């Protein structure tokens, strides 16, 4: 159906540009925020005003100013530049953990949803167990076992958040499997693998983009929580959670040490949430 294909490519372009114009302001802002942090993660030096590790004992604990936008810490290091520097590690942890948890979730969810029966029952029970273990406790257990490192945090947060994805995907597979259009495809005489590949999997996966976007923000918040307890990646790496942890001791007389990294975490997570929810609405056809 080449001609149909050409038409749809063309109309998709038109559609896309129309959608672009209809995107609300908050999503634009969110995209700019996310873009900023992605650039910071890939090429931090482009955005930095100071060397994030350079100690300047003549200017410790300075309040935000033109010279130091977000102020300086107890060693005179520029907080803004440290936040930019830390984006890489925080984003790695967030993306890695989300990828891991969605990977686990996909395998569990699809198998449980497709196979069904006793197998599904056993897998669901296992998921219940993982669900019953609080994410942070699990993360601490992993840190306890393998010592603090980026990889530990990725695994800990990834495993801790996986059951949520698995449940969602399983439910999705089950609901799509029972959808009338799957039966309609069966009634047309299509073989099951084709139905699986062309209807069930794509439709079951459709909420995934939105979930992933929301998940990365949550993963970063969790990982920062571990670091906040002083159990994260060892200093002087300026991971956001570590910055938050370091700021705790100075919060009473140098609020910017705590507030600024927090704003970074919040704005990035919020940006992802806004975009994720927008995608969700978009995919559910609400817009």
């Amino acid at each position, binding site marked *: 159906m080449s001609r149909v294909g050409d038409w749809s490519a063309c109309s998709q372009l038109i559609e896309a540009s129309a959608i672009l114009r209809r995107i609300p302001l908050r999503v634009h802002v969110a995209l700019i925020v996310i873009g900023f942090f992605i650039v910071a993660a890939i090429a931090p030096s482009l955005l930095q005003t100071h060397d994030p590790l350079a100690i300047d004992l003549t200017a410790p604990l300075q309040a935000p100013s033109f010279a130091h936008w977000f102020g300086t810490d107890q060693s005179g290091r520029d907080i803004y530049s440290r936040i930019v520097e830390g984006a890489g590690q925080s984003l790695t942890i967030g993306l890695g953990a989300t990828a891991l948890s969605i990977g686990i979730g996909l395998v569990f969810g699809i198998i449980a949803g497709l196979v069904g029966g006793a197998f599904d029952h056993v897998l669901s029970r296992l998921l219940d167990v993982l669900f019953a273990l609080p994410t942070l406790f699990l993360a601490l257990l992993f840190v306890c076992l393998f010592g603090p490192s980026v990889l530990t945090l990725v695994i800990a947060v990834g495993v801790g958040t996986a059951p949520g994805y698995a449940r969602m995907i399983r439910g999705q597979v089950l609901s799509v499997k029972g959808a009338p259009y799957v039966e309609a495809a069966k*009634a047309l005489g299509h073989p099951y693998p084709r139905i699986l590949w062309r209807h069930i999997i794509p439709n079951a996966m459709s909420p995934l983009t939105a979930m992933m976007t929301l998940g990365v923000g949550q993963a970063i918040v969790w990982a920062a929580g571990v670091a906040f307890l002083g159990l994260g990646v060892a200093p002087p790496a300026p991971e956001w959670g570590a910055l938050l942890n370091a700021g705790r001791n100075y919060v009473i007389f140098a609020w910017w040490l705590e507030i600024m990294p927090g704003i970074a975490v919040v704005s990035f997570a919020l940006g992802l949430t806004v975009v994720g929810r927008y995608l969700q609405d978009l995919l559910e056809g609400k817009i």
Partner: protein
Amino acid sequence: MRGVSFSLQAGRCLAIVGGSGSGKSVTSRAIVGLAGRRAHVHARQLTFAGTDLTALDDRSWRRVRGKEIGFVLQDALVALDPLRPVGKEIGEALRLHRAVASSEELERRVVALLELVGVPEAAVKARQLPHQLSGGQRQRAVIAAALALDPRILIADEPTTALDVTVQAQVLGLLEETKLRGKALLLISHDLAVVSRIADEVLVMHEGKVVEHGSADQVFQDPQHTYTRQLLDAVPSARPRGSRRSLLPAARPARPPLRSQEQSPSTFPSVVLSAAHLVKRFKGPDGVLRTAVDGISFELRSGETLGVVGESGSGKSTMARLALALDPPDEGAVLFQGRAWTTLTERDRRARRRAISVIYQDPLSSFDPRWSVGHIISDSLASDVESRDERYERVVELLDLVGLSPALLDRRPLELSGGQRQRVAIARAIAPRPAVIVCDEPVSALDVLIQAQVLDLLTDLKAHLNMSYVFISHDLGVIRQLSDRVMVMRQGRVVETGTRDEIFLNPRTDYTQRLLAAVPSLARGGVANRSFSRV
């Protein structure tokens, strides 16, 4: 909706008629001041027994609602709070307007109200939740709640839409009774038959405007507006089979009709599909086996339409799924084109599935939401159509055949209207050139005008493409319009089978007679022979 005016009198019934989106429900809600937050109601005059309703503040409005105007909403399943006992809902108006002194009196009044509307075991039912009542009992309970404070006006918005025909007749009787007791009744309905039974005055609405207003006799016998005439004509009727009900021209294929069967009729006996002693049981949520289909046999001959009619729960849809071999029967077997069908493995069946298609009641859910119309139809084309250009041409041809423009090719199902969706579903069903199409309530969700068009289309296509239909419907009028032979089902069994005329003109069993009698008909003067109905 705009520019609507009418007056209601005690002991009379005014009916507002129109298709979906005609503004009839909004009108009724505006009268009780509940048109919704985003609605702006401007009325030059809205008076109730001399009181100007437009000038009322919220508190005074609440005194009018329930006490002076009772409101019966459509869809009784959700018109009562599903989490609260029925009695509590009915007693709420009494409690709110402080009409009772004690809880014992409240209980007595509630039971008396339920008895008034004819709910058996009223005291027991009052303590049950809405989902534990039958559809008819629920609708009666909703009416009881509206009548609780003996209001002078009763507004009923589609009060019988979801009900089986026998229950519908009873509920209409109940409404008629309240009218005779001196209530002013405002009836909102899309169903002309329902309206014709109790209305004294009719108001026809179309796209938010009143197109016709007059006494019931006048509107039904001598409709002035073309829309009213279309509505009356669109009603599935007893007119000769093949007469058209919509004003659209017949679907004419741009090229010679596609042959549906490559085989000549002699390669298989004239029976295309036959079932013998089908039994299907399902396990209910309580773990008890329920027999949905209980020993059904039927034959469908080549080129024939077998109408299957029955009330909800009669096993029609289960039977359709057995015929399509989507579910295996527990006993009995279906033969398709003279060969084994349900007894085959899915693998052996797959190649022949293209010869039997299905059209569902809800086309939207039967389409993959991500796929475009072109994709959906192309997907069901026979696999021998190899080249892309050929496929494209076939898809356009099929769209043309069902009366849709190729401009819809790239639309997604969500972007189509209800009628367009069902046309796409039909195009998908005829694409593999089937010998048989199983139509499961294909027009039940459509407005009466669209319904007429789709029925005409199905009739035309059958003639062009030499197919047979198993046509399932709860609507006796639709069945009568399309069928050659009719099978009446009840509680999983076949009550009666016969030619269309045998069933409709000379029913042998009690049940069929009762069904036909319960059908509200336009039995007024010039349209006396236009009896029609829904089950």
